[in-house]
């Protein structure tokens, strides 16, 4: 990961601080080994913002449209800081017990069964709060004392947890999609916020070269042009965001790798995600133009 950061041109002072952090907090939990992330996040500026905030002890809120790499970046950060990560997916029915823990009965006794947030906070991990704005404010209020200067958690009947110094929270947030809502101000103020930009050509080129190195230059550039066209059409209001799906694109390339035609694979990954016929035809036209038929 260090090599990757250096290749990205991350400021040496940040890399030095990162190394110092890792030396100060070696990871010792054998039950939760550190796993190298499947994808790497490309974007020097974003990396530097994220590293700076986390090294300063801040929590991060990553805001962006779907498939802009929020979870990829969060996992990358956990890995490069050398900490285990706990992933909590938020939903509208989330409550405090699901995050922090609840009573259970074990060995003839009522015991506290810690939730993922509790475990992460006690072990100094990186807690990824995915789609944080899906949950209700009542549930999120349980996190307040951990996210601000207090860095504590009081569990009724079980005392107080003082958070491990290495613990960090990285929240991710989509905005404007089904089921999402505004994050309340009290919660938002406890994070340093980074707005992840939509994918650009350079980033896509790096990603495809790394993940699908077998693609010819022409196909790679055509696929990138296709995605950029989709993005532009969405920004101009010609199509919805459904087909502007980087995950879908990467999935399609994986299917193509298995031997299916590229056009068919991209139809599965992008075109068929749209159910409005008019919109689907516009996207199909784009596919016919950039990729052609199989």
């Amino acid at each position, binding site marked *: 990961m260090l090599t990757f950061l250096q290749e990205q041109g991350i400021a040496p002072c940040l890399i030095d601080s990162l190394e110092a952090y890792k030396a100060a907090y070696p990871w010792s939990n054998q039950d939760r080994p550190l796993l190298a992330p499947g994808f790497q996040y490309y974007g020097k500026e974003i990396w530097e913002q994220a590293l700076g905030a986390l090294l300063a002890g801040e929590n991060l809120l990553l805001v962006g449209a779907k498939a802009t790499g929020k979870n990829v970046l969060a996992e990358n950060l956990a890995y490069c800081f050398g900490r285990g990560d706990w992933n909590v997916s938020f939903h*509208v029915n989330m409550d405090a017990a699901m995050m922090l823990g609840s009573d259970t009965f074990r060995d003839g006794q009522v015991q506290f069964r810690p939730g993922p947030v509790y475990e992460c906070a006690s072990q100094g991990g990186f807690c990824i709060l995915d789609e944080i704005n899906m949950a209700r404010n009542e549930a999120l209020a349980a996190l307040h004392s951990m996210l601000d200067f207090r860095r504590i958690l009081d569990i009724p009947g079980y005392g107080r947890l003082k958070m491990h110094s290495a613990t960090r929270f990285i929240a991710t947030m989509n905005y404007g*999609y089904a089921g999402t809502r505004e994050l309340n101000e009290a919660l938002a103020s406890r994070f340093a916020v980074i707005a992840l930009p939509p994918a650009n050509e350079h980033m896509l080129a790096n990603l495809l070269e790394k993940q699908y190195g077998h693609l010819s230059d022409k196909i790679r550039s055509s696929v990138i042009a296709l995605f950029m066209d989709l993005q532009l*059409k969405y920004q101009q209001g010609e199509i919805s965001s459904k087909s502007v799906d980087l995950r879908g694109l990467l999935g399609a390339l994986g299917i193509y790798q298995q031997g299916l035609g590229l056009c068919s694979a991209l139809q599965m990954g992008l075109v068929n995600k749209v159910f409005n016929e008019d919109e689907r035809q516009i996207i199909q036209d784009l596919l016919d*133009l950039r990729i052609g038929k199989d």
Partner: protein
Amino acid sequence: MSAENMGTARGSVERRALNMIWTAAGDYTLVPGFVAYLKDGSPDLYFNTIMGFAYGHYGAQELDDYLMYLGHCWLGAVLVDMFWLGLEHATYQRSYGNMLTLENLRQAWAADYLDDSHEDSMQYLMMRQELSHSLKKARCLEIQGKNNGLLNPWEKGLYKGLYFQQEQNLPELKENFQQMIKKYFLLKPQLLWQPGHWHLMLGAGLSQILRRIMPMEHQGKGASQTQAGRLREKSALMSQEEERRKQEKNWYLPGIGSKSAAKELAEIKAIYPVGALGESRRLEIEQQVCVGNHRYSHIYLAGTATKGEAYRDNYGHFLQQGRKYRRIIEDLSHGLQNSLQLAKGSYSARAGQGKLAADLAWQGIINGDERIFRRPLPEQYQEFSVVLLLDGSYSRHSQQKQLSAQSYVIAESMRRCGIPTTVLSYSTIGSYTVLQVLKAKEQDVSGIWNYEARGWNRDGLALNILGQYLGNDLSNSLIFMLTDMMPSDEKGLPMAGVKSLKQYTEEAAIADTETSLQGLRKEGARLAGIIQTVVPFQPALARRLFGHSYVHIQSLNQLSRAIVSLVDGYIQQQI
């Protein structure tokens, strides 16, 4: 097929064609003068792409200007076809290396054109320009690697001139083309230009696959679409209003220098032939609301008549801008569904009955706690309905089409989310303030197109009438008032004495409106302002009238988020 469906079907085909051009040009603000279709009416991917590249490379405005110039002549359609054929050659040469598929698309395009299996209609054959067809056919044969088939030396020479070179810029291409016209048509180019002979050649050879589109509404903003223009309009309207005031006596006693109420009512009924209430109910409401500041006023509740000119104008505008408005409907519906979904939620609490919670079962045994079930909490907010109240005064005339479309967008989005919606407009004519029901709760949304801006706006009285009309529904209504916060009426406020001294405008009218709004709130209504104004927006005034429940709309893109935030705020207050 209904007019709306035809418009939609044509619209979607045209939208595809435009998207093809925009993709190639990389410019979504471009308003192309031409789009290309295949014989079956579907958009021509190859040629629209070529056009897009050409527009992007040579400059859309300059290119279209020249093509329009060529079009203004006896041989206009043929010359335009020829120029495009020449551009096709140059553009293809320049672009094919950059695009994987262009060669295949070109081949398919040529094959499609040469395909004799299509049974060309008699109409197509009659309209097809033989010269254009010969030249196009020659090009397609060459694309297929065959001899171009031209035997006529004149045609051969002409065709040679259509190998435009990719290195040439537009002025050079134009110059060469002009020389070619002169040589082969033995005419001075300037003589070809005949003003007033603009014609559409649909289906003539290449022309069947080239079809001019009507200029988009946003091409070249008219004065009324710029802020300066709107301000000038508003000033002009205000001047007209002032003139009218000067001409008419501002006596407020009926019967002195003014028409009788009955005569006025007859005139109102002539404008609004369909009433929404019986006469006795109308009088009942009038007695309730025409008191105090409005004691010399009258009221009328109108329904919507058959589709008149306003309907056609408003609906025509919507069809023209359909893509934009449909996008907003989708966004707004989506946002409203979010809000409703989150508010309803399935929050549950521990209880002594309900659905057994396996994770709590042990508490029953160990702690003797019977609350080992989960019970969903009752819905936390009450079902509500939405009322759109539109200022229908003449000051909104220039925005009539847009306001009716916005109201349609809101009502249609609400309908999709199952929120009952009523749409009304109000205006004041003479001493009558008319509340027109454009869409009752149970009616469909099409009546909204009847919205017509006329008269003055005595807002305070209109709100009072609304309160009476809604009756018991008032307490579970979220009322959106689409307003510019400029109530005014030629009939002033009655004062002590014979002659009215106070105009119903500015502070006096605002105070009266504020009182009416407070009255509705006391009855349980929730009010929100959707403010669009041509004069500088006054946040303090908005807060005075609507508290925190208002949005100031400066562009259509703000509409869906604004409405969702107001609905969200309303729901949150209830929870």
